[in-house]
């Protein structure tokens, strides 16, 4: 597999008022890998995502991205739409954000906005009806159709996105992100709310994306079956800090990860209970 770094997060810290959501986080993602970002609720995963995709500006820290071509970008210094349009970082959202009143096809055409905009000569050729734009639009529609086929929604291309079933909306959102030709695809809990069959289909889709388009994937997920099956590399966060980093097998065996997910260790239960009793007299341990 590829070995060059596509994303490096250095000393990333984000504070909201007094709350430190992400605290001096360091990790890197390799080109062509699926990197998983896991951790309990409130660990700061989505905040990291929002920094990488430009929606939040980090309080301190550096986010550098290297394209396969060697071009470098500092994501923390770019406007959110530039992160997507020039650094080619695409993302999906935890609570699906499709253009629900537009058809599935239109959703994928909007994703190719910047390409089509150039082809339409900033709309001038387009309004005048020049063929340059017509060809470009045809190519864009072909690309959209290809993706719709890949996610199994070709037949529903002309239905409004808001009327698609939940699982289909999740897939459509991924396809829409892919239509921007991303170098990194950031997925925020793509398997949330999917049934086991849909979840398995998602795994196939994501593996396909990695293997066919060489897109690097960054993934937040709670569904451990997805994480363990498809991730090449996992980073675990707790309270904004990294507590583990490695292959899925390594992370799974890390005692700190187990502690984070299960609360305290079994051996400590006695001592914690006695502390509670000391603090609040009258409370008996059951």
């Amino acid at each position, binding site marked *: 597999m590829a070995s060059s770094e596509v994303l490096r997060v250095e000393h990333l810290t984000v504070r909201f008022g007094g709350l430190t959501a992400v605290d001096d986080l360091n990790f890197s993602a390799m080109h062509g890998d699926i990197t998983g970002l896991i951790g309990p609720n409130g660990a700061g995963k989505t905040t990291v995502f929002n920094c990488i995709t430009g929606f939040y500006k980090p309080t301190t820290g550096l986010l550098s991205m290297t394209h396969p071509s060697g071009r470098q970008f500092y994501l923390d210094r770019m406007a959110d739409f530039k992160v*997507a349009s020039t650094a080619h970082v695409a993302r999906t959202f935890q609570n699906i954000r499709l253009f*629900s009143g537009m058809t599935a096809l239109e959703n994928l055409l909007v994703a190719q906005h910047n390409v089509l905009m150039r082809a339409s000569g900033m709309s001038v050729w387009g309004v005048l*009806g020049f063929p340059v734009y017509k060809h470009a639009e045809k190519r864009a529609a072909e690309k959209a159709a290809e993706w719709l086929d890949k996610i199994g929604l070709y037949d529903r291309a002309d239905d409004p996105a808001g009327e698609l079933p939940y699982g289909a909306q999740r897939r459509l959102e991924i396809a829409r992100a892919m239509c921007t030709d991303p170098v990194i695809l950031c997925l925020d809990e793509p398997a949330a709310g999917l049934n086991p069959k849909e979840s398995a289909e998602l795994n196939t889709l994501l593996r396909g994306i990695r293997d066919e388009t060489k897109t690097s994937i960054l993934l937040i997920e709670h569904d451990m079956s997805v994480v363990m099956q498809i991730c090449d590399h996992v980073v675990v966060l707790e309270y904004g800090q990294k507590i583990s980093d490695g292959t899925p097998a390594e992370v799974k065996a890390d005692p700190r990860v187990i502690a984070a997910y299960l609360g305290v260790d079994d051996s400590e239960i006695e001592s914690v209970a006695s502390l509670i009793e000391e603090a609040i007299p009258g409370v008996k341990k059951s």
Partner: protein
Amino acid sequence: MAERRNIVLGAAAVAIVSLGMFGPLIGLKTEQNMANELVLLFRPWHMLAAIFGAVAIYVIVTSLKAANEGRVRAVAVKTEKSRFQKWLAPGGLGALFLYPLFIALFVGVSGIPKWVDNFGILILIYVMLGWGLNIVVGLAGLLDLGYVAFYAIGSYSYALLSLHFGWSFWICLPVAGILAALWGVILGFPVLRLRGDYLAIVTLAFGEIIYLIAKNWKNFTGGGAGISAPRITFFGIKFDASENGFAAWVSWVMTSISETFGGPAITLAHAPWYRTVFLYYIIVLLALLTAYVTLRLRRLPVGRAWEALREDEIACRSLGLNTTNTKLTAFACGAMFGGLAGAFFGARQGFVDPEGFKFIESAIILAIVVLGGMGSLIGVAMAAVAMQGGTEILRELGFLKQVFGDDFQPELYRMLIFGGAMVIIMLWKPRGFVSVRQPTAFLNERKAIGLENVKEGHG
């Protein structure tokens, strides 16, 4: 039985409430006597009539509701366009072009000022303004409550440019459009990062500022007295009875043609309606230009970006769309058509004053866009005809004077009924007349999208 009792009780409640509401305001009229003192006039019959009217409306509405209860509405699913829909656009276009001819034939030339000018031209101005604002509100989902500012900028641009530089209408028209678009960008740039109703309020404030400046900057705009704008010419030929006028020119052309074939000389007498008809066709073309550009832009990336912005701004940014530029283009496009309509309005009036650019005009245009169904050209046109034409007809109800006496002035009720219609249509169809959205591209078949999925934007 219980239902009937409820209605009676409800009617009694309505009677009491309306007594409180209308008692002082209708029952007691304030009037000035000879000594300029305010005195009260007791009008029991007016008051009773109002209360009776309120009760009657209540009883009718409640009984209708009761009658409709339990009746299941059939949900019709149509994918094929009905024949009516298919012929609506071409039929409407044909009717639009033949309208003056129709009036001339069936009402006579004397009917032209009323039917072509008051109805045709005025309604078409509102259609055009509605279509222009539709780009901003209906497509991009940005709530603009000060749209009339751009209409004003267009009008004043025309009047001032022709006054100071002597430019003709046909030069001023595009310049007015460009100036309005420029102002759209200038005003839009600082405010477009505002979200929600704040954008609406800032645009409202801008609209009022432009109106107040037009009203108070006497040296520049002529203040409340206004300034005159040159009347429209037939590409430089004036519509008057002079030797160089339009009638004389047409006579000369016709005669030359006729004489080439050995025919007699043809003379055309001057009539004021030539200009009206000419103006009518100009506004038809301007409105159609608006519609054409809108339709075209919707199928371009910029138009899709507007609609995507209305649906979800954050998703747009995640896809690399420069949302500020997208909003600005929508604002500028809308403003440009407002400016073009404004320049036309100036040329039609031959005079520009601030009174036509009050907030109420913005509200009416916005109402037309929302009542029509946001984003739908046909719907907006229908709403403009219904609201503007419908209330214009009220001016024609002079015969009601014979019923209610000479004091009765139907035109006073015009805006009252306009407001009432706005409320009733919103209660009846909150998404407007046309509540479907046509997709801008399709793979297998074109299916209209119900507006229940379509968002309204938040700007």
